[in-house]
């Protein structure tokens, strides 16, 4: 059998999904199932004076209406999971339904449970709530100002956390030959997976057991937290993530609605379903980014960097979401130096409460913001010293001889060959020719821009002791069982929880190579806390690097045991057994062999096992890596800006990524396309906009521009393979590289195009209006 690892295998998942045989949460139907709908606050900040649910309760088909008061003592507030240390963290847990106050528009204040979803929606209209509107604050810098409205009365200045890392003496900047400073805004975006959140809960009053099927990226985390919130022992709470229609970080968080649905099922003794509408999703599911980043880079006239200092003022929204505190601090702050050798660096993050939807992880979670600021400031530095941004990068990229490399922020980059990806990208775009063409077109009055992003990303979460040190209230190891059935078919269990990544295929490839079993004979079970003892889910590009590594180790253990059984049957010592292509053979004795399937039967029947070998053939691994992994690469974007309209057209996009060992290049490329398009989306179109009083103005797909197919040229992808030493597969992560690398590549390209106008920076998204105005101001200035 050919090596499956490294082969572009078609997905095992697809026939089911292509024929309408998927099972997403909203596809579930249970006997007697009721439907829930949430009433949400129209105000960003208000006192709840009175809620009258009587009329709604009388509406035919309504079974129950609950308000926050009804849930006191029954459903506890939902806590964050990331207590960032040394940050004077003022964590604010979320009440399952608002009690005295609502703190953002869209916060749930009541729930209706009815016979069908139409009736539930009808009854929402019959609930009357008297609000006393309070002044709201939505912008983090305004929220920090004296006299700003307080989101939480006991959090002065709305300062939820103040976190610092690294040190740079002032002299490093005062005495530097060159210093560039820039204030950047990494705008608020909305992850928007195509499946909104949904939950179905069922309670067995006899046993006290509850099952919640929900749209989760990490069902075991949800089990752990909802267990406390609902007061149900973890041993009696089962969380199932069936088919999940994308997550991008939005389905990591532990929300309140799922817990309320669980409680309703318990109280009403009937299954309850809730499906979020898209308009609700815009308000009630986590947003991301929203960071004002002030960056200063010091260096020499020859282009060498010497010191970096960064201040991040991050909008956390109204509550501290599950990973909300970690994204703008640890995830962002430790990665500020990017792919460059910068001897000194320091970061400070102000995490601020505002009357907005809470922010949390979104594809990259802190790393895209870190990459954006360093890649932008590097370009501005190049401009200041009059060098090609390419040359400045070449001068400062960490050289391949330096790996493993310890950064100024104290991270140990595992492996890298940054120049290689850059050179490959230059070759792909034919850089010199491109610059010439740019010049020629400029002469004709056309605005062409070339933008670089030479990024590195931290992922593969990660060592659990590091998780502990950074205040994450959980482990980040991974769990896998490889179970061989008597017929030699294989079921693999993983604690990761894929939702579109194709993990059933990529993990089958890993196991196929290990066991010599065709991938058709290997099934993956994931996303069910009853089948899988423990696990930490899919986020932070950890699935292959951590979960896949656990699978590989468990499969090795299966082989080790099978070898002993084969040796026993073939009457030789274990050392004399070779195993290849699914066949155990005696070294040097052709023809004396047993197939993997024969040994699977022997192991399970146990008629003739060695005395010290137990029956059955399965093995488990709990893999905790020694370090994170650091994928890297070089993206080059070429844009054309329309002088008359300000519209940015993408002419070319080349991505060269190194994600260590690639298990399935087809799936890897799919991840790159999706990530790059999302990253370009942030650069050019996407953005959540609040009015001054906290109304979400970009609250539907009509107001929030999702990337469409016609916006894009083909993304050209190449990869190099620099294995990671921290896991047995040599794999890194790929899911978040696109959203990390693309925004600065695009913005750098647009700024390059606008160079004739002397425009150094514009805030994302680079809408035609913004770009046109920038050119217009400059024209008027001339």
């Amino acid at each position, binding site marked *: 059998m050919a090596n499956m690892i490294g082969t572009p295998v*078609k*997905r095992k*998942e*697809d*026939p*089911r*999904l*292509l*024929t*309408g*045989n*998927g*099972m*997403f949460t*909203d*596809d579930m*139907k249970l006997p007697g199932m009721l439907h829930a709908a949430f009433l949400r606050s129209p105000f960003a900040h208000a006192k709840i004076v009175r809620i009258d649910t009587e009329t709604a309760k009388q509406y*035919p088909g309504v079974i129950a209406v609950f308000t926050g008061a009804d849930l006191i003592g029954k459903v506890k507030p939902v806590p964050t999971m990331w207590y960032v240390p040394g940050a004077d963290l003022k964590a604010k847990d979320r009440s399952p339904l608002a009690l005295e106050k609502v703190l953002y528009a869209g916060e749930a204040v009541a729930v209706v449970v009815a016979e069908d*979803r*139409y009736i539930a929606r*009808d009854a929402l209209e019959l609930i009357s709530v008297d609000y006393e509107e309070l002044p709201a604050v939505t912008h983090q810098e305004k929220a920090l100002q004296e006299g700003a409205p307080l989101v939480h009365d006991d959090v002065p200045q709305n300062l939820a956390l103040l976190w610092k890392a690294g040190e740079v003496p002032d002299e490093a900047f005062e005495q530097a030959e060159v210093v560039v400073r820039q204030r950047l805004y990494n705008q608020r975006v909305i992850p*928007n*997976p*195509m*499946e909104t959140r949904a939950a179905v809960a069922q309670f067995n009053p006899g046993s006290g057991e509850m099952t919640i099927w929900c749209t989760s990226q990490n069902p075991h985390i949800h089990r752990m937290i909802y267990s406390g919130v609902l007061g149900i022992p973890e041993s009696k709470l089962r969380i199932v993530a069936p*088919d*999940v*229609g*994308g997550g*991008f970080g939005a389905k990591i968080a532990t929300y309140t609605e799922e817990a309320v649905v669980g409680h309703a099922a318990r109280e009403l003794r009937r299954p309850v379903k809730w*499906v979020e*509408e*898209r*308009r609700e999703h815009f308000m009630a599911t986590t947003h991301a980014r929203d960071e004002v980043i002030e960056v200063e880079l010091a260096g020499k006239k020859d282009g060498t960097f010497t010191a970096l200092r960064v201040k991040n003022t991050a909008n956390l929204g109204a509550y501290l979401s599950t990973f909300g505190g970690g994204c703008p601090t640890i995830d962002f702050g430790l990665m500020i130096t990017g792919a460059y050798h910068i001897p000194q660096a320091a970061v400070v993050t102000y995490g601020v409460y505002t009357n907005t939807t809470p922010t949390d992880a979104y594809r990259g979670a802190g790393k895209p913001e870190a990459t954006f600021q360093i890649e932008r400031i590097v370009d501005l530095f190049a401009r200041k010293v009059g060098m090609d941004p390419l040359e400045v990068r070449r001068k400062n990229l960490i050289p391949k001889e330096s790996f493993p490399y310890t950064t100024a922020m104290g991270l140990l980059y595992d492996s890298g060959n940054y120049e290689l990806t850059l050179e490959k990208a230059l070759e792909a775009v034919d850089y010199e020719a491109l610059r010439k063409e740019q010049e020629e077109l400029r002469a004709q009055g056309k605005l062409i821009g070339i933008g670089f992003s030479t990024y590195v990303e931290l992922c593969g979460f990660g060592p659990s002791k590091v998780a502990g040190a950074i205040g994450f209230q959980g482990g980040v190891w991974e769990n896998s069982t490889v179970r061989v059935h008597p017929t030699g078919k294989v079921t693999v269990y993983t604690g990761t929880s894929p939702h*579109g*990544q*194709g993990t059933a295929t990529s993990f089958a490839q890993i196991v196929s190579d290990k066991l010599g079993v065709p991938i058709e004979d290997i099934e993956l079970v994931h996303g069910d806390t009853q089948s899988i003892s423990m696990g930490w889910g899919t986020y932070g590009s950890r699935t292959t690097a951590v979960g896949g590594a656990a699978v590989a180790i468990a499969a090795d253990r299966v082989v080790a045991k099978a070898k002993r059984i084969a040796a026993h049957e073939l009457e030789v010592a274990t050392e004399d057994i070779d195993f290849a292509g699914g066949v155990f053979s005696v070294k040097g004795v052709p023809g004396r062999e047993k197939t993997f399937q024969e040994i699977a039967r022997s192991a399970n029947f146990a008629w003739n096992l060695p005395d010290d070998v137990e029956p059955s053939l399965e093995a488990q691994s709990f893999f905790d890596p020694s370090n994170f992994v650091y994928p890297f690469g070089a993206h080059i974007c070429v844009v054309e800006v329309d002088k008359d309209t300000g519209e940015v057209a993408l002419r070319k996009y080349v991505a060269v990524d190194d994600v260590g060992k690639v298990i399935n290049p*087809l*799936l890897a*490329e*799919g991840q*790159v*396309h*999706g*990530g*790059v*398009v*999302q990253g370009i989306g942030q650069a050019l179109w996407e953005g959540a906009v609040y009015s001054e009083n906290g109304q979400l103005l970009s609250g*539907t*797909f*009509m107001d929030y521009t*999702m*990337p*469409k*197919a*016609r916006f*894009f040229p*083909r*993304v050209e992808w190449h990869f190099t393979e620099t294995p990671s030493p921290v896991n047995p597969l040599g794999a890194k992560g790929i899911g978040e590289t*696109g959203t990390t690398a693309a925004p600065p590549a695009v913005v750098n390209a647009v700024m390059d195009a606008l160079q004739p106008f002397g425009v150094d920076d514009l805030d994302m998204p680079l809408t035609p209006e913004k770009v046109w105005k920038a050119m217009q101001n400059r024209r008027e200035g001339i």
Partner: protein
Amino acid sequence: MNKSCKVTLTVNEVERTAEVEPRMLLVHFLRETLNLTGTHIGCDTSQCGACTVLVNGEAVKSCTMLAVQADGASITTVEGLGDVEHLHPIQQGFWEKHGLQCGFCTPGVMMAMVSLLQEHPAPTEEEVREALEGVICRCTGYQFIVDAVLHAAAEMAKLQESGNVSDTMPVGEGR
């Protein structure tokens, strides 16, 4: 409000009759009444196209249409496109070219593209991208969807040439 109407329509070549509320959306009728859950709901405001089905052969977002408006119509959903043993070329294309990741938008996207290929059997890449205007996919970045559609177009042209057309548009072989 709760007054119900009788509707009779043909779904995937099977005639179905049901009593529905006049306000019931076609997509809810398909999913809840007929249990055809392959058609998904992604936005409620007719932008995302996850709910696209064929109504009398034309792509329609089934969240924009009431079940009663479909009375007498012939509907094709993803379940009627082709089963695992007999995939429609568009399904095969999506499989071959990795045109789906989470699979949530996929049924609607495929139905929209079946409609495109009926009208334009040999679209260019640009035409496919234009035709995808009515759908949103958050996972794939669209590139492999485009490849999937072009692959399907080529396969359908081959089938057309060989005269074996009966399998190319098997609309209605499903449930």
